[in-house]
């Protein structure tokens, strides 16, 4: 159950994007850049949501399909598809990762105190991934905890076919 932390800064900026009709947000400080989708090199035995790796200015970066990761319906990958490059941290290690989303939306300032905790709102995506909910002009934005998006220990193991959103 994500709760806004009391230690968090008063105001945080989020970059929001669209995924299957919903708007999600990630802290802008974690975003390295945005680019179009390009062909990935697949990795054998990787989970289905790991689409593969790409060359990002000389660095080898994995691309994560968020729809697949969240267990949403598969979308089409076309010219509008966007990859948001973010910095993911886990246990002192920082990795650069690309997230495939439908489209980029906007940048918002959200006060931490205005974050709502996530109720059981249909269980579309697992609570581990969600930091909190923000209300922007009557619109609901789901703020993601991107550091928890991937369980790196399990990533190299082959996953069963029916991959669900359970972390």
């Amino acid at each position, binding site marked *: 159950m994500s709760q806004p932390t009391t230690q968090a800064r008063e105001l945080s900026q989020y970059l929001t994007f669209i995924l299957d009709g919903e708007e999600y947000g990630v802290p802008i400080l974690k975003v390295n850049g945005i680019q179009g989708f390009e*062909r*990935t*090199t*697949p*990795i*054998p*035995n*990787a989970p289905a949501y790991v689409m*593969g*790796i*790409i*060359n990002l200015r*000389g*660095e*080898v*970066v*994995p691309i994560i399909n968020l729809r697949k990761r969240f267990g949403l319906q598969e979308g089409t990958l076309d010219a509008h598809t966007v990859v948001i490059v973010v910095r993911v941290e886990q246990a002192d290690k920082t*990795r*650069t*990762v690309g997230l495939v989303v439908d489209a980029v939306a906007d940048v918002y300032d959200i006060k931490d105190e205005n974050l709502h905790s996530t109720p059981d709102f249909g269980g579309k995506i697992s609570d581990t991934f969600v930091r909190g909910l923000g209300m922007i002009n009557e619109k609901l934005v789901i703020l993601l905890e991107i550091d928890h998006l991937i369980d*790196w220990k399990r*990533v*190299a193991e*082959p996953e069963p076919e029916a991959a669900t959103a359970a972390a």
Partner: protein
Amino acid sequence: MHNSTSGHSQLEEIRHIFISECNDGLDLIEQGLLELERGNNTLAIVNDIFRGAHSIKGGAATFGYTNVAEFTHVLETLLDRVRTEELGVTPPLVQVFLEAVDVLRAMVQAMESGEDYDDAQAQTVQAALIGWLGGEQDAVAPAVAMTSATSTTHADPTAVSAMASGQREAKGEDSLAPQTAPGILWDIHFKPAPDFLRNGNQPQHIFRALAELGTLTLQPLLDGLPDFSAFEPETMYLAWSLTLDTQADAARIREVFDWVELDAEIDITPRQPLPEKAAAPSHAPPPAQEAAVAEQHAPRLERRGGKKDAGSIRVDIEKIDVLLNLVGELVINQAMLNQVTRNRSGRHGKELAGELEQGLLLLERTTRELQEAVMEIRMLPLSVTFSRFPRLVHDLSARLNKQVELKITGEQTELDKTVLERIGDPLLHLIRNALDHGIESMEQRQAGGKPATGEIHLGASHEGGSVVIRVSDDGAGLNTERIFQKALEKGLVEADAKLSDSQIHDLIFRPGFSTADVVTDVSGRGVGMDVVRSNIEEIGGRVQVHSERGKGSTFRITLPLTLAILDGQLIRVAGEVYVLPLLSIVETVQVNAALINVISGREVVYRLRGKAVPVVDMREVCRIAGNAVLEDYSGKQMIIVESERRHVGLIVDELLDQHQVVIKSLETNFVKVPGMLGATILGDGTVSLILDVTTLAQTLHRARRGDDHAVATITH
């Protein structure tokens, strides 16, 4: 120097440098000592040893490691006696010096990791050193100037870190202690020596310092002034009579004259007799107490991460210069190409293409040279690794009661730093084994007509595109029959298997083999050769053994020059491009369907010139969903690769070209992927995975172990 580095990490960096200097110094001392023992008793060597110890002492003292400084001081004092030839070089003396080196190594290690060292051993060795000095504790002059009047504090680690924070540490004696007594008048007679000015001193400095302590009045005394004709402007003729009204005590006043006490006559007397009082509160704590505090500090430093050299290297300036030159040429190349394209109006077709091609060729050459130059920077000579072996052989052979000489050649051969770091352990094991099991005892050797002193030869050289390291001994050689027996017992071979001597010898690298069984000697210990082989293969190398009974054995290690760059064969499998390490490829064949056998309905083998090679469909390995595994392989390309003496045939769709690739780690932004060495970025900017042939072969072998019979005859 980076201004942005915080003071603390600045200090850490310097401490690191100091520790590495200590280690270098210790290596130097050890080398010198071994030379002395060999009879090379020259003054130059003794001086080198002395200087090494002196440097360590100086550094240790400065960084506040008083225990190290004190220990080294005793060592240094003894070395000085040798230097002045008061003491002769004898084996027992060298032995105690070597023990001192060991103690210091442990101390330096403790400095680095923040853990404790064995104080008992240090005490024992120190006592032994003092014993050599004639047993008198006073024979050793005070180690560090802690008791000297000129420095009332010493740089314990806290003081040194005061530098890090760039702050003034409030020291007791700098600030005037709150005095209950009123200010006292002092008469100071100050007569600087004639050379005073020539030593860079200025009376004003003294006066200014005194003025800081209270109210100062000056009265110059001119009686020393000569006639004008005899006057030398650089000579000091003046003296002063000073009156100082201050709350500071005599010691504090005297301190102002610290620098010039040898250069002047100084008299400091109070006008009235001083009232009886205890030692001035502003005085630093008694040295004994300081010593105790220091002792507490030095042996145990704050626990740090204990990370050893996290990845820095020292590089010859020349290598950097080469790099700079090449970068310069790159810039010129680029400018040239720019110009060609800019001036293209009026020129077209063949002429333009020709100029561009020229420019690109030049660019290619410069880039290649740049790449080589950068790789060169990571290259370090093997001497770094080899240097610890003479001492090892010396100690171990003494312990085993054998006479063994270690010969080293080719230690200037350079290797990539990452490879270098990981070759030390395997070499250590090989040399240990040669000492333990290879070289026979003196009696056995003499009985066999060999010289009593055994020889181990450690040699390195560049051969082809690799580095070859040989560890050979002139000992008993491998016992082929015993090896075969053991292998039989362990089920590694069949009783009727026909194996050549070299094939049998290679069995020692199989897991479960203890080297003790490998030779005629029965010794309790033995390091598994399988560990040695896997360590070497992990860094992309190979190891083989050649042995002759009664004559000796040679272990031959082949290593790639660098880990970061690989010669690769590009292949296409199901539309994707992969890279196979060229070194592991034996040959390529076009599949003749008639030579395919399918065992147990699933496993495919290929009869290649009478031998059965297991076949793997790369599509299966690459597990690309949706690609059907082919049934019919006829006409397909099969690449035979070798790993750990096993061959495997890989079916691919297409063979592409060969070229060097830069290995990029998958772990940087992802995780280690089993079966893959890493990834690389091809010329067209796409990413290709690099296949790990070793794991491929191992996995296959494990999966098919039931059919070992079919596979066993492959080793050639």
